[in-house]
């Protein structure tokens, strides 16, 4: 237990040191953490609006990963001479923005239609198709 704790602490120190030179890893760690928070929100919240907001969090985390890889690709192409494609990741991120806007519009329209019929936004009450 003690050894594991010191190992984790030394890992953390090493990680903070790497932060100075290795930004892709820190961006990906942040992206993973944000994705996990969003996934937890989708699973745990019972207000449909909060579920939709958590989906937005997850989409933002994915966008961050795309942009971090696109930025890393500039240096990768410079070092290795591979063909440069640094804009592709950004265009995927742009597509995700458009998708998120469409998803929010349709999802919120569904929420409004459901609320008009049932006067609730609680997922516990949405059980018509459970049986």
């Amino acid at each position, binding site marked *: 237990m003690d050894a594991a704790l010191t190992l984790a602490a030394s890992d953390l120190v090493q990680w903070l040191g790497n932060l100075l030179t290795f930004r892709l890893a820190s*961006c990906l760690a942040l992206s993973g*953490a944000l994705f996990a928070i969003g996934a937890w929100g989708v699973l745990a919240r019972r207000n449909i609006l909060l579920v939709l907001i958590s989906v937005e969090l997850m989409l933002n985390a994915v966008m961050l990963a795309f942009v971090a890889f696109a*930025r890393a690709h500039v240096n990768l192409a410079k070092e290795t001479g591979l063909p440069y494609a640094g804009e592709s990741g950004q265009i995927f991120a742009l597509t995700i923005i458009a998708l998120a806007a469409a998803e929010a519009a349709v999802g919120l329209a569904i929420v409004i239609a459901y609320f008009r019929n049932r006067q609730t936004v609680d997922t516990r009450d949405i059980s018509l198709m459970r049986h």
Partner: protein
Amino acid sequence: MVDLLFLAAAALCVISACAIVTCKNPVYSVIGMLPFFLGIAGLFVLLEATFLAAMQIMVYGGAILVVFLFVIMLINLRPEEIRDDFSFGRYLGLAALAGVTGGVILSFVRAGVPPDGELERAFAMGIGSREGQEAMSGGVLFGSAESIGLTLFRQYVIPLELVGVLLMVAILGAVILSKKKL
């Protein structure tokens, strides 16, 4: 300096994301989306994707946030109607959230980086060094609207049109779904 800014933006994102998923009142959650989106936009600026940062603020902060606020206003739940909103207890949920977040970060830490590996040097980003970047895309700077636009209309024209069709369908679907009587 850039590292401090990165840490600040990352902390802003994580803290506001935690606030979003743990606040009981949905209005606070939606307000919490604003610092989250601003933090993500700041990260995009630090990654030199300035056009995407502008798009992020305009579309998310300007459009999606306002639409969410509008829907909350339309639904207008009274405070006594907001029931216990969490599947497994609020504080247990917070502990689980901290555990999951820490676990993800630690797993990245444990996976580590090869000390003098090729990959590390290739992927080390070195933000702030502009030399070499401008030569990449025919003299066009990474992350500028020009470079994105050129790639978008040269390489990704069909996906662009498909996204247009998707937005059209989404608009029609939203109108049809939220109309009382067709």
